[in-house]
């Protein structure tokens, strides 16, 4: 069975919420919409205190090309435009909406009827990309890169295939899995739309084989789409990384930055993004809700919730049986790449794929011990880097060295820290080095 070539680890899967149907979460009393829900320029608020908004009303317009607009997911009144703590653990500009009722913008088609690509012959590539851009769709796997940017290849590059990322290699998370089981038809229309938008004839859906039901269902449904193929993959973390997935599915390697996936002819989109694209293009629905897995060993009902963006995490935890007494750490995202939250009032954003509640015992990190030069981190690194070295030179502020050792190629998957028998905080230091080196490179480019 296919998988990527270099490195990788296999953490315990713990997919506790697998097979639990998608439940719609209740509306929050107050929704908070961060203007920083994507990579790139922040959105600019276009509403002010006292404005009445509906579901689907524009709250913030895109702040540049690499940016995305933000829409209200609730109806009510804007109570203020101020800073709010968000999942990145910093205070940033946000729009607060006090919820009243549930009124939707009339342009949104709320029916469940499936609209196929054949039903809409008027759609051409340009219209599709424009609609995606207007709907504020970003990469739903967690990276939150504005979707339309990936669909507009830079001059000189030509896409050859679309790869749909349905790997969900993060332990615990089952949001994409449940979406595939319940919205397979819509996802396939979404994939067809992406293929039309970038003008390719080949589409692949990569699914890890720990989701046999999803593979079987997608293989059944895909018979109606001769140009799309379902590719079952061997379970291996971090297969959901863009570069790893391209390697696993079409056996091509993306060179070091500044090369991007399109350089090898691949456009990768998450399965959740494909669904959001279907809703945006066919139903005129901007990105206002997403599936989020709320899970953890002590959580009463680990579930997959369809929640409106801006809902505070505290409410989502209530929906799943409340915060367990032995909570040690609450992580936004999965256990490998997610980030611990310092407050439960933080609202969910476009990139919130999961909410993991760890108990005290599993949350506690072991005390770091000296490096024993076992090179397990080198073997586990899916990018072929030397994590022990990168961590060391980063902690010693040797930025030139770090740049030479390709620290910017690190995808921050955490395999090195996971495998380290000395429990060294490798990724902490590498992240520090990576962000510093990237800053230095940006400065250098700006000077030129």
């Amino acid at each position, binding site marked *: 069975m296919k998988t990527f070539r270099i490195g990788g680890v296999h*953490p*315990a899967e*713990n997919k506790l919420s697998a097979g639990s149907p998608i439940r719609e979460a209740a509306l929050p009393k*107050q929704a908070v919409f961060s203007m920083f829900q994507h990579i790139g320029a922040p959105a600019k608020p276009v509403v002010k205190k006292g404005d009445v908004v509906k579901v689907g009303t524009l709250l913030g317009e895109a702040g540049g090309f690499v940016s995305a607009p933000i829409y209200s997911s609730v109806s009510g009144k804007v109570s*203020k435009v*101020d*800073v*709010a*703590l968000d999942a*990145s*653990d*910093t*205070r940033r500009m946000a729009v607060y909406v006090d919820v009243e009722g549930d009124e939707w913008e009339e342009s949104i088609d709320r029916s469940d009827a499936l609209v196929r690509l054949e039903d809409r012959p008027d759609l051409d590539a340009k219209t599709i990309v424009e609609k995606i851009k207007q709907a504020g769709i970003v990469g739903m796997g967690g990276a939150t890169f504005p979707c339309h940017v990936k669909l507009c290849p830079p001059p000189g590059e030509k896409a050859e295939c679309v790869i749909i990322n349905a790997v969900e290699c993060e*332990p615990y998370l089952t949001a994409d899995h449940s979406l595939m089981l319940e919205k397979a038809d819509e996802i396939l229309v979404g994939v067809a739309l992406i293929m039309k938008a970038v003008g390719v004839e080949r589409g692949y859906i990569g699914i890890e084989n720990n989701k046999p039901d999803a593979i079987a269902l997608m293989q059944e449904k895909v018979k109606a789409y001769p140009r799309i193929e379902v590719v079952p993959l061997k379970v291996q973390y971090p297969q959901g990384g863009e570069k790893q997935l391209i390697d696993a599915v079409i056996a091509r390697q993306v060179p070091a930055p500044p090369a991007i996936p399109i350089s090898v002819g691949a456009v990768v989109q998450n399965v959740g993004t494909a669904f959001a694209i279907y809703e945006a293009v066919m139903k005129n629905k901007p990105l206002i809700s997403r599936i989020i897995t709320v899970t953890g060993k002590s959580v009463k009902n680990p579930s997959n919730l369809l929640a409106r963006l801006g809902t505070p995490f505290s409410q989502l935890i209530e929906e799943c049986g409340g*915060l367990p007494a032995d*909570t*040690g*750490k*609450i*992580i936004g995202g999965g*256990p*490998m*790449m*997610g*980030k*611990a*939250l*310092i*407050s*439960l*009032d933080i609202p969910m954003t476009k990139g919130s794929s999961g909410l993991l509640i*760890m108990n*005290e015992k*599993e*949350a*506690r*990190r072991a005390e*770091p011990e000296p490096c024993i030069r076992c090179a397990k981190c080198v073997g586990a690194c899916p990018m072929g880097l030397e994590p022990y070295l990168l961590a060391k030179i980063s*902690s010693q502020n040797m930025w030139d060295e770090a740049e030479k050792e390709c620290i910017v190629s690190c995808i*921050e998957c*955490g395999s090195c*820290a*996971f495998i380290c028998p000395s429990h060294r*905080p490798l*990724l*902490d*230091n590498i*992240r*520090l080095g990576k*962000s510093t080196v990237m800053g230095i490179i940006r400065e250098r480019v700006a000077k030129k």
Partner: protein
Amino acid sequence: MNVILIAVIVLGVVGLVSALVLFLASKKFAVWEDPRIKQVSDFLPQANCGGCGYPGCSGFASACVKAAEGGSLSDLNCAPGGQAVMEQIAGILGLQASAAAPKVAVVRCQGTCDVRPHGVEFDGAHSCKVQNMTGMGETLCQYGCLGEGDCASVCLFGAITVNPATRIAEVDESKCTGCGACAKTCPRGIIELIPQGPKNRKVVVLCNNKDKGALATKECKVSCIGCGKCVKVCEKFEAITLGTNLAHIDPDKCKMCRKCEEACPRGAIKAFNFPPRKPKAEVPAAEAPKPTPKLEVVKETVQSEAPPTNKVETTKE
């Protein structure tokens, strides 16, 4: 016998030839170094702290000699050596040392555990830089001291330590040479170098919080809220300026009257090394409780009680 003789002669000749080659090479490729560099270097403290901006003491010595050719040492200062060393250097180079006020580092944060509770615990790599990169840190103030001790680890003089009880870095003024290594390292820019002041006296705003007043009040009990009261009492000297919701005292203009310390409703301004104030019985009006500043109460901006022990950073399960 013959063998020994031959060996001695051969080695002797080889030795002579080598000596000749080395002698000629040392003459031919000799690099002339200004002897004053060595003299200057001998006076330097040899701490190699880098506070002067040059790579170690010998680098500074060459810079001094080079600057002497330009006729002025005004841009150079050896912080650990202080004025005495600079005067000696100037003497060697036949110049006049310019008067440079000795500086000390101050940690502009008073957010101890009592006034700025640590709601969560950070269990990642123990480094301020790493913790700062992940976001807020353990408290709700994103500007305050992180207490992991990056500054203490770079101080060559043992002048700065993190107090385990308060989790705040503290400077020992008697040991601080003002080299500035800590100020350069602090990822939050809390440490500032200020002139030592007459009799070591100085008045400083001990806060780095740039949030709006309402938020700053929630984050820490001794935060500067940018109310501007200190600016008003200092109108005459104009030593205090208000930045982004944060007051700053210009040490060059400060007349050490300590009015601002009295005026600050938050206790964010502190005067160092002053004798205790005289009791103010004769001015009863000043004893009246100061009205608390009117603040716009912003609801639900920050959750006051964070979950017990969640920590920042990626973890493995």
